[in-house]
């Protein structure tokens, strides 16, 4: 329904008028003193009812709304968000995108996501600053090399790029690392060159704009306080701005999944945990890849603004607080110093926490629920950002057609009871296994 558009200037969709972004638009606006820019999305009042409601205006919820409209022609849709759009984990992550997974249930899904990332900006007409700068996972021992070789082979068998590099290969990518650390000498790494980073907020904004353009109502400052269920099927949501009816409701509320699902009487295999992230002061270009040090658990990349963006482990205890504690901060800094001693004199500018919906096998859930018309998108653990496009794509497919998308077919809610768990790392929410 979104046909070819002119390369610049306004564009009409339905009875509405949009500014399409391009270099020429920027130049024209500059010459007019930048007085012609319009709000990027509307701020509508909720209607009494919609065909579908997405609870949660984060990356996954907005992407779902976008693909419902774009792929399935469902535009009488609302996204209800308790805060402002993108105020949760989509604005709190470390912006990494990759598809270097091991298990057959995961690889096709994350590769689908990677392919969507590769065309995202053209698709959305929005600069999400997708940068395929490469992701490097270090290994430090023969068994770890074998394990990464196996992962790389699994990826290549699924048509995903993967490259096992030796010590010199790592040296070429990141010469400043401590190669002869006594405990974790660097022996090589697994590289996915198509991996990289994206501007996290812009992903939310791009999807929001794309959904709004197609008629989706993005309703902010509207907290869901109840889910109305009658005779086993959903009728709508109670919110702080009144009741909104819908026969299809999709939950994409990340760390608050258990709370919101409990409103419909569900008890899920999910625990909420806090994951901290950090950014340093702005620096000149220092590292041009995403580097992960799994043995000590520290990962880092550099934003276009110059800050080093990095993180490590979850704190390990259940939390809804969006802030962590000092022991994990210390642990992340120690990991950083172990692998990259040159970081010692760099100052940390900010740190924050996000609430992760840790599923019990560490893999996501995109499925129907026992309540008719209620759909669940959850369990993203600490890997939700990279999945944003495919998560929205597959959740929209499920909500529109009532069938699982083939690449997300393994993400069933009943897999915990049936035994078909997807234990990519075999840790899930269990703190002492991390």
């Amino acid at each position, binding site marked *: 329904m979104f046909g070819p558009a002119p390369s610049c200037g306004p564009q009409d969709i339905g009875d509405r008028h949009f500014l399409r972004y391009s270099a020429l638009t920027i130049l024209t606006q500059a010459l007019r003193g930048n007085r012609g820019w319009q709000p990027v999305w509307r701020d509508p009042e909720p209607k009494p009812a919609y065909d579908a409601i997405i609870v949660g205006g984060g990356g996954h919820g907005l992407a779902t709304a976008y693909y419902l409209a774009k792929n399935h022609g469902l535009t009488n849709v609302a996204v209800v968000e308790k805060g402002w759009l993108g105020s949760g984990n989509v604005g709190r992550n470390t912006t990494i995108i990759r598809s270097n997974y091991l298990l057959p249930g995961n690889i096709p899904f994350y590769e689908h996501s990677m392919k969507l990332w590769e065309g995202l900006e053209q698709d959305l007409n929005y600069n999400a600053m997708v940068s395929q700068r490469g992701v490097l996972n270090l290994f430090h021992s023969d068994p770890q090399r074998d394990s990464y070789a196996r992962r790389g082979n699994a990826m290549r068998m699924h048509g995903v790029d993967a490259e096992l590099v030796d010590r010199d290969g790592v040296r070429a990518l990141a010469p400043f690392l401590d190669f002869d650390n006594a405990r974790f000498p660097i022996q090589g790494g697994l590289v996915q060159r198509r991996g990289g980073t994206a501007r996290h907020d812009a992903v939310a904004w791009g999807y929001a704009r794309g959904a709004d353009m197609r008629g989706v109502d993005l309703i902010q400052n509207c907290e869901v306080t109840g889910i109305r269920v009658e005779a086993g099927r959903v009728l709508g949501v109670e919110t702080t701005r009144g009741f909104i009816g819908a026969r299809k409701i999709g939950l994409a509320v990340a760390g608050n999944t258990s709370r919101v699902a409990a409103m419909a009487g569900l008890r*899920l*295999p*999910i625990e909420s945990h806090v994951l901290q992230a950090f950014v340093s002061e702005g620096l000149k270009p220092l590292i041009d890849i995403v580097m992960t040090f799994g043995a000590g658990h520290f990962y880092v990349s550099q934003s276009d603004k110059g800050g080093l963006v990095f993180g490590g482990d979850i704190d390990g*205890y259940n939390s*809804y607080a969006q802030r962590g*504690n000092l*022991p994990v901060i210390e642990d992340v800094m120690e990991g950083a110093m172990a692998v990259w001693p040159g970081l010692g004199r760099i100052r940390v500018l900010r740190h924050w926490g996000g609430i992760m919906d840790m599923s*019990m096998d560490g893999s996501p859930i995109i499925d129907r629920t026992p309540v008719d018309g209620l759909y669940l998108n959850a369990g993203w653990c600490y890997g939700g950002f990279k999945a944003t496009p495919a998560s929205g794509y597959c959740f929209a497919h499920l909500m529109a057609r009532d069938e699982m998308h083939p690449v997300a077919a393994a993400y069933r809610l009943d897999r915990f*009871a049936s035994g078909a768990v997807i234990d990519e790392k075999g840790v899930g929410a269990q703190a*002492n296994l991390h």
Partner: protein
Amino acid sequence: MRIPCPHCGERDRREFTILGDADPVRPDGLDTDADAMFEYVYPRTNAAGLHREYWYHGAGCHAWLVVERDTRTHAVAGVTTARDDTLARQRGGR
């Protein structure tokens, strides 16, 4: 975050290791079925508020504790030993 150990007094969180939710009770393996084991292993209440959880005081008295903590603020509301907690449960005290 500091945890008041019943034996050692208030100590830094670094001295403790968390195991997780203290509410699920493991069924007797010889006297149960798959559904009850599933209920024990997977679903969680995951409360936003008071949460009872097992912590081990590894750098102190080596006792297993049940800590009641508010997951919205991390404030600790109460601590008892896992032994006393289990005895209380067996007596039907909670």
